């Protein structure tokens, strides 16, 4: 049967991997190609690269990095950060990305997702949703709001409704990040992950808050996520992808070992 996926996430800027933005500032975590190869050897099912500054002059650096990784690592690569047009998607795919992750631009122009999916196929269009709990929503029926611009800008959109809309627009999967948990190492917002995974018919990647191997397991067993993503637990040799997979297997979850 199909294995649940474990996806290391590499936040990159200026051609380097850096530690998550919301957690004690930026800290260098290595050369992207070396880091990608290490995770590939550990059994990563996919890799995600998020260009966290996404400045126009950093674009050429990002593309050459994607090319270098794609020439050596033969697993799916998702690249995101500043993807605003069909031309941006094409350039990323040509550089060696398999999927482009779209976030802010989807909110600014919802037709963009349908256009990109129509052009390149749903399989390579990931819609990233940064969701924050609505503070006064009832605990028994919580609601989440979509944020853009790296989690800084509220949109007024209900996250679940937005996810359904993106699914209908042709998104191939959803990369769902809890802004409340991102960088906290307290674990996924499992209610958020489960609400999305159970509601949507496309795969949901859980992201934001992982501080331990058990959090990754919880994302699948309690959050029903199709894939679990983490950054910092992998970057400093704290845990390997193999550690996560062995823990998932021990919990009865199908994995690729």
């Amino acid at each position: 049967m199909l294995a649940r996926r474990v996806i290391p996430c590499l936040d990159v800027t200026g051609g380097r991997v850096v530690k998550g933005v919301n957690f004690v500032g930026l800290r260098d975590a290595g050369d992207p190609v070396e880091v990608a190869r290490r995770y590939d050897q550990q059994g990563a099912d996919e890799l995600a690269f998020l260009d966290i500054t996404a400045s126009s002059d950093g674009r050429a650096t990002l593309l050459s990095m994607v090319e270098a990784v794609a020439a050596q690592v033969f697993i799916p690569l998702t690249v995101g950060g500043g993807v605003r047009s069909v031309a941006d998607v094409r350039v990323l795919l040509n550089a060696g990305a398999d999927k482009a992750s779209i976030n802010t631009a989807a909110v600014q122009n919802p037709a963009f997702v349908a256009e990109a999916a129509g052009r390149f196929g749903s399989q390579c269009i990931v819609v990233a949703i940064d969701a924050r709990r609505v503070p006064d929503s009832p605990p028994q029926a919580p609601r989440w709001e979509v944020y853009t611009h790296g989690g800084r800008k509220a949109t007024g959109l209900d996250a679940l409704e937005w996810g359904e809309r993106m699914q209908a627009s042709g998104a191939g999967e959803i990369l769902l990040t809890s802004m409340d948990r991102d960088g906290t190492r307290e674990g996924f917002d499992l209610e958020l992950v489960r609400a999305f995974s159970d509601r949507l018919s496309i795969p949901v990647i859980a992201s934001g808050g992982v501080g331990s191997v058990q959090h990754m397991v919880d994302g699948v067993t309690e959050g029903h996520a199709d894939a679990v993503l983490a950054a910092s637990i992998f970057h400093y040799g704290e845990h390997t992808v193999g550690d996560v997979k062995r823990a998932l297997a021990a919990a009865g979850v199908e994995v690729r070992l």
Partner: protein
Amino acid sequence: MTIAVVDYGMGNLRSVARALEHVAGGVPVVVTDSPEQVEAAERVVFPGQGAMPDCMRELDARGLREAVVRAASRRPFLGICIGLQMLFERSEEGNTPGLAVLPGEVIRFPEPAMRDASGQRLKVPHMGWNEVHQAVAHPLWQGIADGSRFYFVHSYFPQPADPALVAAFAHYPFAFCCAVARENLFAVQFHPEKSHDAGLRLLANFVAWDPAAGSQPAA
């Protein structure tokens, strides 16, 4: 002595070409939309991504249909993903006629059947790493353990009219055909170019494959 990757303007063929170059040992890999180059190639890889109606339309728009059909009947030929689906007579996706190189149809994962043993809903597209169970001995499976995982991403799968065509199957949640083989033709629903060691081995096996030598794998 070239390997042609057929380019009809759909999806990302670079990763297929990159993976082939990685295993081809210096044999030139050309990504081409020229029927003449496809005709001239020693081996042909026919990939595909996106929706089948668009793929068929773009194939015809470039005048590649004849060259692809001829290659599929004569030279070592590897179909990948939509490139497999297009070989059949018809797809449910947009009710699209295919190239009819192989008898059978391509159908969508049926919504009511998509539950796992515990009743949880299974997502479509079928996306991720699944076990590939080899149905026949074949040179392209050489050195690849039965049940190895390959990377899939698709919502439709083939139903060959002739069960003898089935080279492998996978489960989601029922058994479905994920590879077909006939003479000089091999086609897979999964993406060998994104399937790590097992995928690279399959591509290397394709580069070395001599269909005239018979279908018995070497010792």
